[in-house]
């Protein structure tokens, strides 16, 4: 165990140097490929905001169920099923059929090629589920149908969330999907996420509809106008939605200098808007945003150029925000913040200071203790500890890992536990020396050999725990698992190669002298 070939020695120190070299890239400004890598600071250290958003797909579910009504009725008639009392309650379609019709219903409803209850190949299940209660049939979205709806809503939302955040000028936001219905947004350096939360909290579904009392065609809804508090009834027929918008900007109105939003429509939108406005001159057009009527101006002229404005008691800020929302597009469903963690930059800096300070002190305490306890071999343990620390930081840089406050704690803990490997070896050698062994070399040889298994066992157990923590932990705690796991690996390397090599140098020079440790 004490004989190292020259090649081995070179390899050991080369790999040590290669890894620990990356420590320096953290303090270098160079843009060189090797020096570019840096340890990322977690939000708890650099300050910033962590927002977990959840898509509320209930309105989507309702819409999805509603979209099934007409084709379903058609299909029932096609199959000679006499349904009665057809109605929709929340997200459930209800109707009654005769007992002998149930079989026919099931036959078409569970056909994998039917176009109402779509078979979802990736989930191996249907989009809809149904139950019979005597003659009553209840149809609702299946578990996987909801998951699919959520997933597609999240996929659509992510792009829009990114656009909205980019519009605010936030640097390096990270926006990722979490599970089937969540989006994780990390905003480094943001001190106050309130504006972003406000922007993300609105779906910004815009529609233009006529003010009318005529219930016959599509039905009407009543709204209270936001600017004048007037009660208006609005047709359910949508002339235009925000989807037809290609641009929106805040402006001041020429006449009374009020902030307004000026928008530009795409070609299809311009055509439709032109037609609707030319047919309805003198009537009022309601502008509905997220189920709120913001204004209902009277149409004075046909608007054919695809340019229009929205007024509605805006401040310049709210006009700016609305323009931003309209530019980035509507969210398919409302997003709500289910978890939020914001750390100010000064607390982050305080945490770094405290963390680094306690790391330095902890490190020196351990080093001093080892010197007192083992003298010369304490020095070896300490050299191995320092190289361990350098390699740990080097690895973190190489992987561009995220360092969090618990992560710093993980490094300190590694310092405390890393000497264990050395202690196991030294104690074992001591024991061997006490026995009737002829010379130092044999004792060291046996000591190393016998302690290796124990060192592996002992470190693997801690590694198992920290890998599980890495899988299940979230945010800062994950950072702890990262540093602890890497620390265990560098510990094994530095104990098995570096300590052993340094020990071998001393032992080979002192073959006869007894009891070195």
């Amino acid at each position, binding site marked *: 165990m004490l004989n190292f070939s020259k090649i081995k020695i070179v390899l050991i120190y080369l790999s040590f140097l290669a890894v620990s070299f990356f420590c320096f890239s953290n303090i270098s400004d160079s843009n060189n490929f090797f020096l570019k890598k840096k340890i990322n600071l977690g939000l708890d250290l650099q300050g910033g905001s962590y927002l977990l958003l959840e898509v509320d797909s209930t309105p989507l579910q309702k819409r999805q169920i509603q979209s099934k009504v007409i084709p379903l009725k058609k299909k029932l008639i096609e199959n000679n099923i006499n349904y009665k009392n057809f109605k929709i309650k929340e997200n459930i379609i209800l109707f009654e059929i005769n007992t002998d019709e149930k079989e026919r219903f099931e036959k078409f409803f569970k056909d994998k090629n039917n176009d109402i209850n779509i078979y979802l190949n990736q989930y191996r299940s249907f989009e809809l589920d149904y139950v019979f209660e005597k003659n009553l049939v209840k149809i609702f979205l299946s578990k996987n149908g909801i998951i699919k709806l959520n997933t597609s809503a999240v996929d659509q939302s992510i792009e829009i969330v990114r656009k909205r955040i980019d519009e605010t000028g936030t640097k390096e936001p990270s926006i990722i999907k979490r599970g089937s219905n969540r989006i994780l947004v990390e905003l480094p350096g943001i001190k106050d996420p309130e504006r972003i939360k406000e922007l993300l909290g609105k779906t910004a579904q815009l529609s233009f509809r006529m003010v009318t009392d005529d219930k016959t065609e599509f039905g009407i809804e009543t709204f209270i106008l936001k600017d004048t508090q007037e009660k208006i009834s609005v047709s359910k027929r949508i002339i235009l939605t925000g989807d037809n918008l290609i641009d929106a900007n805040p402006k001041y109105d020429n006449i009374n200098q009020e902030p307004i939003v000026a928008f530009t429509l795409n070609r299809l939108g311009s055509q439709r808007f032109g037609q609707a406005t030319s047919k309805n001159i003198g009537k009022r057009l309601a502008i509905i945003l997220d189920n709120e009527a913001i204004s209902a101006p009277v149409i004075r002229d046909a608007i054919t150029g695809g340019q229009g404005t929205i007024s509605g008691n805006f401040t310049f800020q709210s006009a700016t925000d609305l323009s931003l929302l309209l530019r980035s597009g509507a969210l398919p469903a409302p997003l709500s913040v289910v978890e*939020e963690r*914001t750390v100010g930059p000064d607390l982050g800096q305080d945490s770094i200071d405290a963390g680094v300070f306690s790391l330095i002190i902890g490190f020196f305490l351990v080093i001093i203790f*080892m010197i007192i306890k083992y003298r010369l071999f304490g020095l070896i343990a300490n050299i191995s500890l320092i190289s361990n620390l350098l390699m740990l930081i080097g690895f973190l840089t190489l992987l561009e890992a995220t360092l969090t406050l*618990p992560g710093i704690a993980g490094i300190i*803990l590694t310092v405390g536990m890393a000497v264990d490997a050395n202690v196991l070896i030294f104690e074992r050698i001591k024991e061997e020396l006490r026995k009737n062994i002829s010379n130092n070399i044999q004792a060291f040889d046996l000591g190393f050999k016998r302690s290796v298994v*124990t060192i592996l066992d002992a470190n693997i157990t801690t590694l198992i725990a920290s890998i599980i*923590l890495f899988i299940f932990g979230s945010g800062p*705690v994950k950072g702890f698992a990262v540093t602890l796991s890497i620390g265990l690996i560098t510990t094994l390397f530095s104990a098995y190669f570096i300590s052993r090599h340094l020990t071998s140098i001393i032992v080979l020079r002192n073959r006869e002298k007894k009891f070195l440790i």
Partner: protein
Amino acid sequence: MKKEYNYNFIKKFKMANLISIVFVLISLILIIFKGLNFGIDFKGGTLIELRVESNNIKINDIRSAFSNMDLGDLNVKEFGKKGDYLIKFEKKEFNKAVNIKSIKESVVNKLGVDVNFRRIENVGPKVSAELLNSGLIAICLALGAMLFYIWIRFEWQFSLGSIVAIFHDVLITIGIFSILSLEVNLSIVAAVLTIVGYSMNDTVVIYDRIRENLSKYSSSTIDDVSNTSINETLSRTIITSVTTLLALGSIYVLGGEILKGFSLAMIIGVIIGTYSSIFVASPILKYLRVSYKSIAKEEEKN
């Protein structure tokens, strides 16, 4: 040459086990009846850490600035430096009328001074339930994985012994958190998992030695073998706990308020873990009648 340790641990096993059983029982009773002081991670709610530079603001002013806002159960405490406060309240979900923005504005208005909101955390009810769940799953998985590892590496008596020792450590650590009403949050789960790893590590070192010595001194009783093995590894056991505790103590004292709970849990866990590998894990081998013969038989079977 320093004399090697030669304490008689066996004589103290009975007493130590009795104490352990009492402590575990008390911990269980505390955990069941007194419960744990869950932080917002697991209970849901909101946490605000703020700093006021003005000397005229007292803790009561902070408390009254937050009251009358219908925030539910409110808890205000000083946090580290003078002028730093930690405010926790029950309110989990916000709406247009009451939200973080409105709370911040109202607090600044009521206090009439500049307030530095250093940290704001809000955990909704769904997420907190999920975090608690995944924390528990993580701990169970870690225990299971340890059991599995030790089961392939050692004989079943050893796995049972080490698992009992881990349960002992984790339960008493949580029991201490219960009796002192210390906050249990995500970082405590991390601490518990690390304690599991550390305790296992410590136990494995002694078990390795016991197994080695069982075959070396095949005619000796398990009592003698345990005692020799504990003594032989005692020096290492102590040194490693000391260096680990030095590192943890440094985090506890100097690492800032946020790491206090975590490092305290670890300190408690390391002390108990060290104790248990000697006084819990080793006697169990004796109770399970481990001997050179039983080990040889097991090995033959495998």
